[in-house]
Structure formats: C-alpha cells, structure tokens
C-alpha cells in the first residue's frame, strides 16, 4: 500500500517534539547563535523527550525498536525549532546509533544502557575531515590492524561536544573501507583543539578538531567490523530531515511576514512575484519531504535500493534547503539581511547541509 499519514503514535511524537521546537528552541535560536552558547537546560529538556530512548530496545535500556521513518518525522520537527539546538540534543545518537547498527553484543551492553538511562551526556561521533572533496567513503584518517588492536592516525573536524566527550566513534579508512572505531576520552594520542570551530552558522553548537596520533581503538563490530553503508544511509536521511525542518522554518517565517508587510498599498504576499516564491518553496519542501520519507521507509524495510534512495533524498534536500532559505531572506527584503530577524541564520544554516553530513543520524 501507499500511505502518507503518520500513525497515531508518530503523530503524538510529532506534536510533542513540535511543541518543544516552537516554544523552547525557536525563541532561543537567535541568542544562542550570537552568544555562541546553547543553554544546557534546553538540551536536557530536548533529551527528555526521549527520541533515542524510544528507538533503543529494552535489552539496552530503551523502550522501542529503531524506526528511521519515525525518527525522520521527529528530526524535522526538532530542526524546525533550531538546527544547532536539534543537533545538540541528538548528539549522543552519533555514538549510540552506530553501536546499535554495527556494534557487537558486548559493545551494546557496555555503552547503550548508560547513555540511554542517564541524563544527556556528551557521547559523540567524528566523520568529517577538513579537506576539499571530502568523501565519507574515502577518508584520509587511517586505521591499521596491529595484532588484535587497531591504530588510528589523522584529523577530524566539526566534532560536536568533543571537548567534554566521554567517548566518540571515529570513522577511519581501513584498507580502503570506512569503519567506525570506539575511542575513549582517555586514549593516548587523542588530542582535542582548544578552540572551537569557527563556522558560517551553527555557532551555538560547540564543535572541535580532533587529532589522532597512534591512537589505539576498538573496532565497531569487533574483528569482523560492520557495514558502514547502513550508518551512512542513516546519516543521509537524518541530514535530509534536518534540512526539511530548517527550510520549513524559513517558509513559515516568510509566509507570515509576507502577509503582514505592505508595499504599494497591498500585502506583499498579494504580489505574484512573492506569492509564487512561496508556492515554489512549499512545492520543493513537500517534494523532498516525500523523498526523505520514502528513503527512511526503505531503510526500515531493508529494501535493496535504500542506499540510492537515501543518497537522492540527501542530495535533493541539500539543494532544496538552500533554495528555500535563500528565498526566505529575499521575501524579508532588506530586513532579511539584518541579524535581528530570523531568516538570515536559516540561510546560513541552509548552506551547510552538504558539508554537515555526519552531524545527525536516525
């Protein structure tokens, strides 16, 4: 069957996350960005909504099975509030979800219950590298098998909360294949930059460079490793879902502004040049929402071509987010360019999706 309506449980989740996004994250977004600080109180409140907990089986301290489609719905809602806030709330997933997808039974037992059952804690993941032509399937950070252990060398970028992290999943190139490795905070040879990353947007999210010099680490999935494709698919779909949230926020602001702002004796929304921009934004957004849903549904149903779908959804959503957030600023006119108004931050965030793959996972 085809069907395009969230089920009752999903709708309740959407409503709960949507309320938090609108009432808590959205009003805080501007100051968090300007002050380079996301209030921990907000992050904790978001964590208490229990997204990760709900997609972790009981055996590991959670209360449900992972559903990419349910997570996609929740992630869009969360990102509608604020991208940095959403990513901060969901940072522990960057560690827990790969373990869930590719970890050995021991790895799951060791890490999942303490993350799931506790308060929000900075467990994180490190995929991105600071290089031109960055490709998650051709990482420059290397892993070498030495005896029973693995030794990592290289540098990772844009690692959220790395400074305080208890442990992180570091992705590295093992004989040409990308694999995840569990690196603990105290590992010898691990160093984290003093300064935070300086980026065009996302300044409320503390991100760091991470250097690895002969760091000994445990391989995700043990000696036989894991299928990185599953993790990459989950990252692509998550990224697409955050793009939906950011774009929807811009459309929402622009629509309301256009209905208020007057020029030439009418509301600017009554001018086709503005109204058609809004219509096209809505069409693009809905197009990529359905692409994202389909990809997530394919992941949940183990469809063979889920990786192509996830790639297409991600690629399309990146373009969509740029187009929509650009027009959000355009519709605000000169006021859109001013940082007091919310749409310019959304445009800065909207440019980031192609390079921010790896900062969210469903």
């Amino acid at each position, binding site marked *: *069957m*085809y*069907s*395009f*309506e*969230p*089920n009752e449980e*999903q709708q309740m989740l959407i409503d709960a996350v949507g309320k938090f996004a609108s009432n808590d994250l959205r009003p805080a977004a501007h100051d968090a960005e300007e002050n380079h600080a996301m209030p921990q109180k907000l992050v904790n409140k978001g964590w208490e909504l229990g997204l990760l907990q709900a997609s972790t089986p009981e055996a590991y301290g959670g209360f449900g099975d992972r559903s990419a*489609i349910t997570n996609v719905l929740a992630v869009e809602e969360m990102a509608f509030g604020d991208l940095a806030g959403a990513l901060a709330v969901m940072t522990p997933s960057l560690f827990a979800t790969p373990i869930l997808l590719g970890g050995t039974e021991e790895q799951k037992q060791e890490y999942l219950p303490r993350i799931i059952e506790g308060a929000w804690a900075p467990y994180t993941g490190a995929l991105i590298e600071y290089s*031109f*032509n*960055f*490709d998650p*399937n051709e990482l420059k950070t290397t892993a070498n098998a030495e005896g029973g252990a693995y030794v990592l060398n290289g540098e990772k970028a844009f690692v959220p909360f790395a400074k305080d992290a208890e442990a992180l999943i570091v992705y590295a190139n093992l004989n040409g294949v990308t694999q995840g490795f569990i690196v603990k905070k105290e590992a010898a040879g691990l160093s984290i930059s003093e300064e935070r990353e300086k980026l065009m947007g996302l300044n409320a999210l503390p991100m760091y460079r991470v250097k690895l010099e002969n760091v000994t680490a445990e391989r995700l999935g043990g000696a036989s490793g894991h299928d990185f494709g599953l993790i990459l698919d989950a990252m692509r779909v998550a990224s697409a879902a955050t793009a939906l949230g950011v774009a929807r926020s811009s459309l929402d602001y622009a*629509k309301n502004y*256009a*209905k208020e702002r007057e020029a030439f004796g009418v509301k600017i*929304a*009554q001018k*086709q040049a503005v*109204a*058609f921009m*809004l*219509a*096209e934004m*809505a*069409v693009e957004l*809905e*197009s*990529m929402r*359905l*692409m994202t*849903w*389909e990809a997530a*549904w*394919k992941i949940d*149903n183990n469809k063979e071509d889920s*990786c*192509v779908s996830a*790639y*297409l959804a991600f*690629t*399309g959503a990146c373009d969509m987010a740029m187009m929509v957030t650009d027009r959000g600023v355009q519709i605000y006119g000169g006021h859109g360019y001013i940082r007091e108004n919310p749409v310019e931050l959304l445009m800065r965030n909207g440019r980031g999706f*192609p390079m921010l793959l790896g900062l969210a996972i469903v």
Partner: protein
Amino acid sequence: MTIEFEAPKPIVQMNAMLKTVAENMMRSTSREMDENEHAIPWDYVEFMHSAMRSMGGGGGLTIAEEKPKEGAEKRPPIGYQKLASQIEMLAWGDVGFYLITPGGGLGAAAVAAAGSPEQKAKFLARFNDDKPTYAAMCMTEPGAGSDTSAIRARAVLDEKTNEWVINGEKIFVTGGDKSFNEYEKLGKGFIVVWASIDPSAGRSGMRAFVVESGTPGVKVTKLEHKLGIRASDTAAISLVDARVPFENVLGSPTVEKTTTGFKGAMATFDATRPLVAASGIGVARAALEFLKEKLEENGVKIRYGLPRTKLTSIEKDVIDMEIQLRSAWLLTLKAVWMADNKKSNALESSMSKVRAGDIVTKITQKAVEIMGPLGYSREFLLEKWFRDAKITDIYEGTGQINRMVVARQILGYTGAELR
C-alpha cells in the same frame, strides 16, 4: 494509517500488462502517428476498448468501484492511485495515444463531479458498450483560457420547448473530434460545454451542459496542428443555437448566490490535475530511461553515492533528473491517495501539477541536450517526448495558475486577495 511506499499488488500486476501494450502497440507506431497528425491508430483504440471491458471496469480509464469479496478484510480504496499509475504507464508508451484511449475523459469526469445520480446513470453507462466511445470537455474559448470566468458562451432556457439554447465558440477541445463527430467504428459520445446562464452573476452563473454528438447547430470547425501529442485530436467547436434537453444541465438550473456552478469545474480539476501530472511523468520517465540506456551503451555509468564535487556534469544532471522525477511522482501519488481517502486535496493536486509541469519539461529538455545530435534527430523518439512533455505545464491550469492555487492555499487567501 501509517507511512508506506509499497506499490499495491493490483497496481504492479496491471502495470506489467500495460507495459507490454505500451511496447508493442504504442512505441511501434509512435513515430508514424506523430508524422501523420489526425490519423487514428485504430488497432490501439479497439484493443484498449475490449481489454478494458473484459477487465470489467466501467469502460475506459475510470475509477472502478471496488466490491470487496465476502468475508474478506476491507481494503483501503486505491481507485485513483490505480488510475494515476495506469496513466503514467500508458504515457510512458506514448502520451498522445494515452489521450485517445477510449472512454469518458474530462467530459465524464465533469459529469461524475457535478452530475446527479440520474445523470451519471444516463451519461456514463455508454463507455462500456460494444464500440469505443469518447467524451470531451469544452471550457476554453479564444478569449478565455486561464481566466475561465471570462467565457462568453451563453445558455438560455427556451421555456416553450424546455430546452437550453447554447451559443459560443470553444477551442482546444481534447478528443473533440472523436467525441462529437460520428464515426462508424465509434459509439455515440458527447461533449460537456461550459456556458453562462446569467452573465451578470459571474462564476455562479456558469453551468456545464451535456451536448450529445451530432446535435444540430454544433460543428467541429478545425483540428489544430500541434507541437506534440499529435496523436490526440484538439478541436475547435462552434455552437450556434444548439438545443439540448433541460435535464442535460449539470448542477442547479437556477442561479443562487453561491458559486456552485464553478465549484463543479474546480472539483473536476482537483481530481484531474494529478492525473495530468502522471501523464507528464510517464513521458519524462521514458526520456530518462532512454537517456540512461544510451549513456550506458556509450560507456557512461552513473556513480551514486559520491559527493557532488566528484561527479561529472552528466552524472550530476542525471542524478538531479532522477530526484526531480521521483519526487514529482511521490507528490502525485500523495494527491491521488488523498482523493482515494476522501481528503480534500486542492493543495496537493496543484502541487503535483506545478512540480510535474516544471520537471518533465526540464528532464526532456536536458535529455535532448545531453544526447546531442542523437537527441535532436528524429531517428529516436526522444525529440518527440521533448515536444510531448511541454503540454503538461499548459493544460488543466498552467504552471502559473497552479502556483496561484498553491499560494492561496498556504496563505489562506481567496481568489480576490491573490489573482
């Protein structure tokens, strides 16, 4: 309810069958019909008519009422989804042929949307008769296209004979020839003509009238020569003192202060816009599949999964085309799924039409460009699909008109607030 993307089995089975029809009866004569505009591929017409009858539908490409087997679990309705999938598949074969698939087309859709139960019984049964039968819809006039409120056709009630007397000039009537003119091989069709019963009442004065084929005073005055969809007849029809029985008016015969008359037309469009989107998407899929096949023959493989910066420009184009095509189809599916589930879908219908109108023209244009001389040559059907695709953004509301519908819906504006 839940979110699911599994094509229902009946649709998959039906499409497998239609694909053979498309390959064997459409593609093989596509070029010939394109080069001989106004010729009729009778083999196709007759085959489709008997095939659809034997499948027990209402005749033609219509939405069959599903009768659940006794004791069987009640399944959600998929009539519109099935129809959209059929249309997409037939248009993949040849969209011009799809448009001359026997049946009620837009004419029957208007009766279904605005007619009484008696009218439906009277006018819709004929499509299941022995001979292929057609119906068409006449809204557009030389001076009134997008602005349907500007139509000048008039209908006046002759109280002595209890007949409507209709005068007007209609143009661009899809299937107008086969619906109105009498052919030995065809059953008796009709056209649905929009006219005003009270010009001072604006849109609320507009009504649709069923005009039977052969009605005196009505004449097909011209068959257009077109850029594409040349297997489909597009007729100009003039009505001079044409008389139709009183009971052939769809909707109320008197003018109230409401806009019921026009709402009938709009209800038709909510239902048919995603179907037009589906027909365009079929053409674009044909073009994209052809392109990928030819690229592969020439040693160009599309690598999925690479960052944009590592892709060739052809790979980027093809990947974008795939995203465009798939997303347009999903929007279309959502719109018809809503129709099946009796959810109001004015927004989604127009969204699917906006998207499809945009992307099917872009995809076919890009495909011709990438194929170079092979794309421009009439050796292949690609150049024809480029010409065929363009109509998607024009009929059943141009891209601009549908953008306006979408904008009004999201802004909560009336037609007066945004025009």
